[in-house]
């Protein structure tokens, strides 16, 4: 009886401790903001408690035995070593527990995988190391990168105190925006290697597989900002491709769509005019930092040890512009150099290429957006 009390006491203390610690340390799975995430959380808690209870029984028996059945207490070993009855009992009981777990797990899984009757669709494409979002019905497309400020802080020995940055590594330049109360279907794929799109508060993650499309869906009840990140190792900067989903009321969402479309028209017009070298260089420098510096490094020296070539003094960045445009547009198969065709507008790509051809001692002239348009 004494042990039971001690155990009960320990248990209460443990629970109280976890309760108070919960505010400072994240300990448990999020309940999330969708029906799915709540179902997943409930399943998680059920199976956790099943394990805790079985654990208490098994470890309790062990600890009892360790305390009382030791030689120093004068215990004499019994010689029993078989009991078919017991073996049957502890085969049947776990089976019953497992079957009773499998039933709710199955219903949840079936609900999770039902992507029918979606009200809108967003195509998600994973790239090394950024996410691209294409809104199928609303005809919006943009790329979501790690926020530039975070990108600076996360460099090796950046000297920036990362604790001073809000939501360090979980902030992007342009978040995905979705309306609340609508079933949104996601079509998830990748352009280069495997990635996985994961926002814990939505209740799931899904791999992004190049050449294949995986479907998932969500329906968020409350407006809010929900953060996540890539969950499948995708190379050097796997840790630096966060996801931010902003859920807005349908009216706010419509306003965002209109604003986004206006910006797209402006951006397209940018590609139709002549740019000065200074304009291209200024735009190119910041775009280079977001898109290229991970591998080719901010100083253009690359990381030869990791197979990322230098651009400073390189044959391509100093040779004919066509070859340079071609590699940025189409990538280089068999390497980490991806195709930027779908990721950069004409003006953006012209700015990056111009920057690469004129920075770090390179001197190979400017490239206008029109040249990119022609090469596409």
């Amino acid at each position, binding site marked *: 009886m004494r042990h039971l009390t001690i155990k009960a006491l320990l248990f209460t203390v443990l629970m109280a401790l976890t309760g108070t610690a919960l505010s400072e340390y994240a300990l448990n799975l999020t309940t999330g903001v969708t029906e799915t995430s709540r179902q997943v959380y409930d399943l998680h808690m059920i199976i956790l408690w099943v*394990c805790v209870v079985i654990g208490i029984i098994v470890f309790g028996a062990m600890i009892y035995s360790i305390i009382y059945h030791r030689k120093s207490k004068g215990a004499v070993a019994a010689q029993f070593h078989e009991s078919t009855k017991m073996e049957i009992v502890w085969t049947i009981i776990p089976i019953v527990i497992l079957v009773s777990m499998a039933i709710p797990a199955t219903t949840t899984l079936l609900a999770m995988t039902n992507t029918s009757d979606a009200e809108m669709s967003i195509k998600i494409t994973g790239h090394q190391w950024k996410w691209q979002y294409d809104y199928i019905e609303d005809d919006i497309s943009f790329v979501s990168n790690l926020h530039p400020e975070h990108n600076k802080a996360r460099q090796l020995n950046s000297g920036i105190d990362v604790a001073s940055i809000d939501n360090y590594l979980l902030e992007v330049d342009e978040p995905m925006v979705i309306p609340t109360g609508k079933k949104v279907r996601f079509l998830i794929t990748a352009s280069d290697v495997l990635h996985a799109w994961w926002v814990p508060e939505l209740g799931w993650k899904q791999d992004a597989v190049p050449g294949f499309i995986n479907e998932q869906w969500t329906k968020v009840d409350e407006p809010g900002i929900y953060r996540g990140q890539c969950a499948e190792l995708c190379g050097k900067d796997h840790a630096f491709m966060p996801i931010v989903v902003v859920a807005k009321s349908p009216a706010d969402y419509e306003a965002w769509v209109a604003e986004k479309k206006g910006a797209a028209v402006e951006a397209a017009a940018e590609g139709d005019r002549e740019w000065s070298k200074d304009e291209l260089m200024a735009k190119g420098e910041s775009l280079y930092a977001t898109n290229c510096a991970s591998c080719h490094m901010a100083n253009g020296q690359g990381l030869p040890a990791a197979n990322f070539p230098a651009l400073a003094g390189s044959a391509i960045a100093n040779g004919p512009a066509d070859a340079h445009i071609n590699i940025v547009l189409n990538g280089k198969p068999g390497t980490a150099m991806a195709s930027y065709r779908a990721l950069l507008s004409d003006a953006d790509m012209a700015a990056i290429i111009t920057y690469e051809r004129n920075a770090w001692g390179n001197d190979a002239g400017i490239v206008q957006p029109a040249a990119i348009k022609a090469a596409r």
Partner: protein
Amino acid sequence: MSTATAAHDDHHDHGPAKGLMRWVTTTNHKDIGTMYLIFALIMFLLGGAMAMVIRAELFQPGLQLVDPQFFNSMTTVHALLMIFGAVMPAFTGLANLLIPMMVGAPDMALPRMNNLSFWILPFAFLMLLSTFFMQGGGPAGGWTLYPPLVLQYGDGFPFLIFSIHLMGLSSIMGSINVIVTVFNMRAPGMTLMKMPLFVWTWLITAYLLIATMPVLAGAVTMLLTDKFAGTSFFSAAGGGDPVMFQHIFWFFAHPEVYILILPAFGIVSAIIPTFARKPLFGYSSMVYATASIAFLSFIVWAHHMFTTGMPVAGELFFMYATMMIAVPTGVKVFNWVSTMWKGSMTFETPMLFAVGFVIMFTIGGFSGLMLAIAPVDFQYHDTYFVVAHFHYVLVTGAIYAIMGGAYYWLPKWTGNMYNEKLGKFHFWISTISVNVLFFPQHFLGLAGMPRRIPDYAVQFADWNLISSLGGFVFGLSQLLFVYIVIKTIRGGEKATDRVWEGAHGLEWTLPSPPPYHSFSEAPEVK
């Protein structure tokens, strides 16, 4: 050399050849077993050093020590060294040392192949480690080698693939040797159902290895041709499928998980009855449970792939099959507890490790059961929850069993007792630190920290700091193990033949240390 001597000198015991050539040319099961164990220990320390780099970088948020590419190569090579370099060779070493002594044989059935299967290993791992000095650095795509990422890897790629081929070759030869020995070399009266469980679990493990290693070899060869011969097995652009690699890989790697744990079950099943002074409870159900686990291990592989976008019928099948594994595994745990029940227990170091194994392996088993629930795995997958899970089953599971086994049989192998006080200290410091190291990783995973990242959001800082501190202590305390082993080899209190009061089995009837050819005359087993 030694065989030439044996031809005209088989009436009295003779020693091994002298000097370095003894170890190069040896066909003796104890020499080879010893070399396997030393090799495993070196790889364990090297892989551990890499883990220290990982934990040092994760000590606080922000990047302080290594660039992300190097970090990724640390996680990748840490896993390859620990799985293929430490745990598997340690088990093969134990098999070599123990199986002939346990079944009453003079040596392994195929001694020359035994020599070859060991000597392949140092070259395989030199090849793997040499990639760190090549253009592109060490492999950084994860030990799972998923394409297309692994195909971006630099000059070291073919070396990585060929080193895996060699490791597989070595494992297959070791396994054939175990099977042939067990079926042909048992002493009269040693029926299959009288064999110690360590022999049983190894016999089943050997079949798993022979069945799955060629599958891995095939998968990595397909990677090789995809990279160099223009095939597109795993490239959608050429009609292939990157996910197909995962299916093939895990068809190997899930049985591999049991390859890494079944011999551990055997070791623990030897230690617990000895120190409980009571026969193993449910011997035959243990054998059947091992066989069931081995069978189930072939039909659960895709539970590593719940988020790849499988059809829902596939997810349901793999979820149910995976949950089933809890049943035979549970039987084993219940049997160990029943063996302890009403025993007359003492807690020397091997017993401490065995009891630690049962408790902490079971914790890893619980998180495994949680991971089996497919809809919840959509949250757990690829997070630190998974990292915590497999380190509980591999470190406090497989490695704890190996350590316990080393303490248990070390007096038999060397003829000297190890220092009990130091052994117990090693156990307690390891057990406290390993839990500080891995238990908080459950919380990190649940709170949303993905695995394989060198830098993380600030809310994960506290648990990472605690985990790293535990890691440093655990890492350092393994040097104590090295010290204890070396000290025991060099001398110490002489061990009796039986060594432990409650020990049963043929190996304990031999002198400590045993003669060069374990049983020159077959013992009789009643």
